[in-house]
């Protein structure tokens, strides 16, 4: 029972569990939650599934869109998403890596038009098995690097 109070329950909103420690703050960043509403973060819980520990993020009074929860899969492919309404789990959402990424991933190529000329960041999935994406401007193929994920443009 003690565990239930480490990150208090919410009545409405979105709960993201099984985020590998210490990436919860990165999830906050790529969702653009920084100045918006109330969210609670728990860091470093023990987890059978994640030997390095897990983080939990609870976002109050906001139901994330599927496009947003799929973005989480870029850094936390095993994350579980529960949508809470009136204190109950109304939806257990399965996430999968997105076909397209807009805005949140910076191209690692410093000479790309997205870094030099103000083009809007846009990647398309190149290979699902290797989780690689192709920049739609410089055409460079890149793996997901958490440091290159930022707040949405």
């Amino acid at each position, binding site marked *: 029972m003690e565990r239930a109070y480490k990150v208090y329950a919410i009545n409405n909103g979105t709960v993201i569990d099984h985020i590998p420690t210490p990436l919860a703050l990165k999830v906050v960043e790529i969702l653009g939650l920084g100045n918006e509403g109330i969210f609670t973060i728990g860091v470093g819980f023990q987890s059978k599934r994640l030997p390095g520990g897990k983080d939990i993020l609870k976002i109050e009074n906001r139901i994330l869109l599927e496009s947003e929860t799929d973005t989480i899969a870029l850094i936390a492919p095993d994350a579980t998403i529960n949508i809470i309404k009136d204190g109950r789990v109304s939806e257990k959402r399965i996430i999968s890596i997105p076909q397209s990424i807009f805005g949140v991933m910076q191209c690692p190529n410093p000479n790309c038009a997205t870094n030099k000329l*103000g083009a809007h960041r846009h990647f398309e999935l190149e290979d699902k098995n290797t989780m690689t994406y192709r920049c739609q*401007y*410089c055409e460079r193929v890149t793996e997901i690097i958490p440091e290159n994920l930022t707040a949405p443009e």
Partner: protein
Amino acid sequence: MTTQDLWTVVTTAGEVKAGMHRGCLLDKTIASLFFEPSTRTRLSFESAVVKSGGSVFGFADPGSSSQKKGESFADSIRTVTGYCDAMVIRHPVEGAARLASEVASVPVINAGDGANQHPTQTFLDLFTIYEEFGRLENLKIGIMGDLKYGRTVHSLTHAMSLFDAEMVFISPPSLKMPSNILSDLREKGVSFRTADTPEDASDMNLDVLYVTRIQKERFGDPLEYKNVAHGYRITRDTISALGEQVRIMHPLPRVDEIAEEVDSTPNAIYFTQAHNGVPTRQALLGLVTGGIN
């Protein structure tokens, strides 16, 4: 682009060279925006416009553009799009032409974007090969030089893989074809091998040896560069080893990688290749502006 699109450009270039589609750019104005220096590409585009009856304006030096005053690239394109029927852009930043195509209301032709693509070079390479052999399918192609960084050879490799080419990649160990390109070829079932010297491919009866420059700045040690570059110099002896059927291509400029003694042989087609830039670009401009249907 699809294989059919490539064919359309190649066959139209042949028609232009044969005298068809005269005046296909009459009353058309083409903007030539070169944000970095270029000789062959810019002059052949401008020649293509004039030969087809169009007019051309622009700049050959980014110092003369209003970006010097702080205007954004996108705003420059949004402005120029109102002055022309199509624009040709070379820019040192990768993806610049794609960004331009998103904000322009006229067709944009990429004349080279940094280390990314130089598609019109590939079109003229394909046209030259087609003109020489009467086909693009089932040819044996050797590609030699800086295969690691050369955008021209990457694009040509991709294009030839669409036509069931058998390929050999000849380079020093430090400048080999990137592994992701080789993986793509394997996935497509393309037949290829690698070699250290052109002579290693003498058993293949190559149709084409496509030579590119090995750049001195890729080597930290000048002596190492000299030693490596020496092994990648095409002479009459190299042609004898490869067989008299082989045709030598090069995107130019060359430095030392093809001996001048090769120029006068029937194997050398690199100046014809450079000249083919004009009908190829006439064809492209005619197609994108509607002057050729």
